[in-house]
């Protein structure tokens, strides 16, 4: 573990996932359950960003949803701030929401289209008992922090672009000052330049508040930019974990290497070299 430098590594972890297993019901009557996570482990320290990289169907989103309690866990443990939460429900889960928040991938589906932005932002505040004038002031603070105009509170989500909606979703996650935010592909639906500004916003917020991120993505370059450490997941197994610089530039596992070579780079000469290296790999693999 890279956290060995710490005096007391166990207490320094804000999230500790051990041997997590999740299975979904099979299709059809009495069909066997399908395992999507086969014993996954990862941990996050306060103020740290840990990236989780994988392709569609790898189980990366399921890990985030299991941490948030949105899918039932069939095995293993999830420890958050020293407390076992893998089977937390109802009241305990609601108490956790003070410290554990989420930003989803789809900025269109994650905001209720018929509720003004200000009310959506006030929801977590109401849940914590803040009302009236205090809540309104907090909402305008939040909009300010994610660099949206103050009159945004009265408008409906459809009046905002994808990037602006994602800022609203980030503001909602920040509302009650959480210690960990699960970011499930928060920028993959956005344009290149919008993506960069949202990533910079996440970095800035982390520097200001010391919040930790579990950052789920399919894009190694995004993860390299934002994350301290990275885990690569393939078919429900974590195949490689390490410092972001090492995993995203000099990966050790063949799958990560293939992932890195497959992502095209915006430089014709470098991309040609990438392509040749990828072909060589394929030939080696089939041989």
């Amino acid at each position, binding site marked *: 573990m890279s956290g060995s430098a710490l005096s007391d590594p166990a207490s320094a972890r804000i999230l500790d996932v051990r041997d997590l297993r999740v299975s979904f019901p099979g299709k059809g009557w009495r069909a066997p359950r399908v395992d999507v996570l086969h014993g996954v482990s990862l941990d996050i320290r306060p103020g740290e960003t840990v990236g989780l990289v994988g392709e569609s169907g790898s189980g990366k989103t399921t890990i985030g949803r299991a941490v948030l309690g949105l899918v039932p866990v069939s095995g293993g443990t999830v420890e958050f701030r020293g407390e076992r939460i893998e089977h937390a429900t109802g009241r305990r889960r609601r108490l956790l929401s003070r410290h554990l928040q989420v930003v989803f991938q789809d900025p269109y589906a994650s905001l209720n289209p018929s509720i003004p932005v200000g009310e959506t932002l006030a929801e977590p505040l109401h849940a914590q008992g803040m009302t009236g004038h205090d809540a309104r002031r907090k909402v305008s603070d939040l909009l300010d922090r994610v660099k949206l105009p103050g009159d945004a509170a009265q408008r409906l989500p459809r009046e905002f672009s994808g990037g602006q909606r994602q800022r609203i979703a980030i503001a909602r996650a920040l509302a009650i000052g959480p210690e960990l935010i699960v970011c499930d592909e928060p920028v993959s639906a956005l344009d*290149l330049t919008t993506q960069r500004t949202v990533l910079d916003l996440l970095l800035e917020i982390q520097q200001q508040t010391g919040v930790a991120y579990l950052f789920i993505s399919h894009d190694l370059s995004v993860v390299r930019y934002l994350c301290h450490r990275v885990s690569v997941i393939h078919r429900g197994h974590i195949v490689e974990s390490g410092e972001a610089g090492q995993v995203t530039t000099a990966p050790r596992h063949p799958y990560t290497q293939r992932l890195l070579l497959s992502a095209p*780079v915006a430089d014709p000469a470098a991309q040609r070299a990438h392509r040749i290296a990828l072909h060589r790999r394929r030939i080696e693999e089939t041989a």
Partner: protein
Amino acid sequence: MSTAQRFLRNPQAMASSALLALIVAAVLLAPVLASHLPGAAELGKAFAGPEPGHPLGFDSAGRDVWSRLLHGGGNSLGGALIALVVALGLGVPSGLVAGYYGKWFDSLANWASNFVMALPAMIVLLASRAILGPTVPVLMVVLGVLVAPSFFRLVRGIVANVRRELYVDAARVSGLRDRRIIARHVLIVVRAPIIIQVALVAGIAIGLQAGLEFLGIGSGDAPTWGAMLNEAFQNLQRNPLLMLWPGLALGLTSAALVLLASALRDVLEDRGAPVPNPRAARRVRVDPPTTPDTAGERASLLSVRDLAVSYGHGATAVEVVRGVDLDVAEGEVVGLVGQSGSGKSQTAFSVLGILPEGGRVTRGSVLVAGTEVVGLPEKEYRALRGGVIAYVPQEPMSNLDPAFTVGSQLVEPIRVRLGSSRKAATERALDLLRQVDITDPRRVFDSHPHEISGGMAQRVLIAGAMSCDPHLLIADEPTTALDVTVQAEVLDLLRRLQAERGLGVLLVTHNLGVVADLCDRVAVMEAGRVVETGDVEQVLKRPRHPYTRTLVEAVLDDVPARPAWVAPRIAEVPA
């Protein structure tokens, strides 16, 4: 426009609700409007016609028809109201709980609802009358139970869908109680359908109740519209006019409710702005190109000059493409890049002649293999699309019909275009699948779209695009929906096909890596205009236009990795 404003501007909603309000007001004011008691009989005046104080005359027992009509309306409408309240009270909460929580309650409630729906309503009502006695309110409660499943099924279906929305997940993570989530996020969605259903069920309840009374099931002493019909029917020979008044009251009330329901549907479920007759918009013919060749020599395969595309009409028209010049030579791959909304897809759609509804080319010239396609009749366009231009879309799955096998979707166009036999077309389709590196073409040929992966579906669409031996391929974000490892394979495939066939390619994408991988030249679009065109090496490495520079700088390929995490220095505040 708010819902109330839409309601006020809908003539059908206004007329039907005004009629209903009139009927309800007349019924509520019965003691004032009718000067006689409904039960007061003057036997001598049986079947007598209208006279002062008795505007509709007398019935078979010499009672005032006007008074009975108004008082009877109270009983009829009141009965329907009871049924409605019972149905809402049973159906809506159970539907909410079943849809939101699912599990055993859902199974149980579904079973109960199916059971009730399987019962023949009239027979159950007749049996209830025999057991519970002839009291109308009790029978109306039974009727309410019988129609409750219509609310249950409606609410359950909608709630089960809303339950899966991300914003409900987000609300749960925000720490909201289920009760609050249901009240805020779920009820708002089911509100409109319930209101519509209420109007429909009210009509049904009034009709069924009248039916019962007409059969003589009711208590008999209180006047109702159904009972009045019954009495009038027995005396049809002596005074047919007695049938008219209760019939008219029933008919008007039911019709008003049905019309109101359909108007409410329009008012409540209409969200977007009205589209100004899209069909007419598409038919607008464009004058032959007016602009002379301003940008020099035109490429032989595809040449676009001063292209403009607009949506909408008159003052509200929006120009999304504003004077685009673009050339693709034979065997050349040209990338068209830009952010979403920059007009790159609209440019591609204009070349293909498949602009979405409401969009039209307002200016400019598009030459495809020497043919001017702006203003080209649809029939000739179709021939061009089948023979010279081919298209690969962004979403492979939504471009395959889930109801047909992959093979039949490949064979059909080949047969239509080349006029070949089914056997020859099948051979050709299998050959094409082999050419796009599908290892087991027969299996894919026989599969339905849901049985193959997204990458496989994109290969199938590329095979379909190649079936007519095109010269120009238009690919709109062909790899955006795919995983990176699959994307690399599809890019390889496109490169190989392009080289083997000498295809000219117009590649629309937002991914500069894809551009670097495939393209010879690039055109960069911003807000409907091409701001920079050039060799791919030059544009990506030495961009000239500031906008291109912004795009290239946003690429994260070369950013340094984030430095390792350091423990925060902030002292722990004791909790």
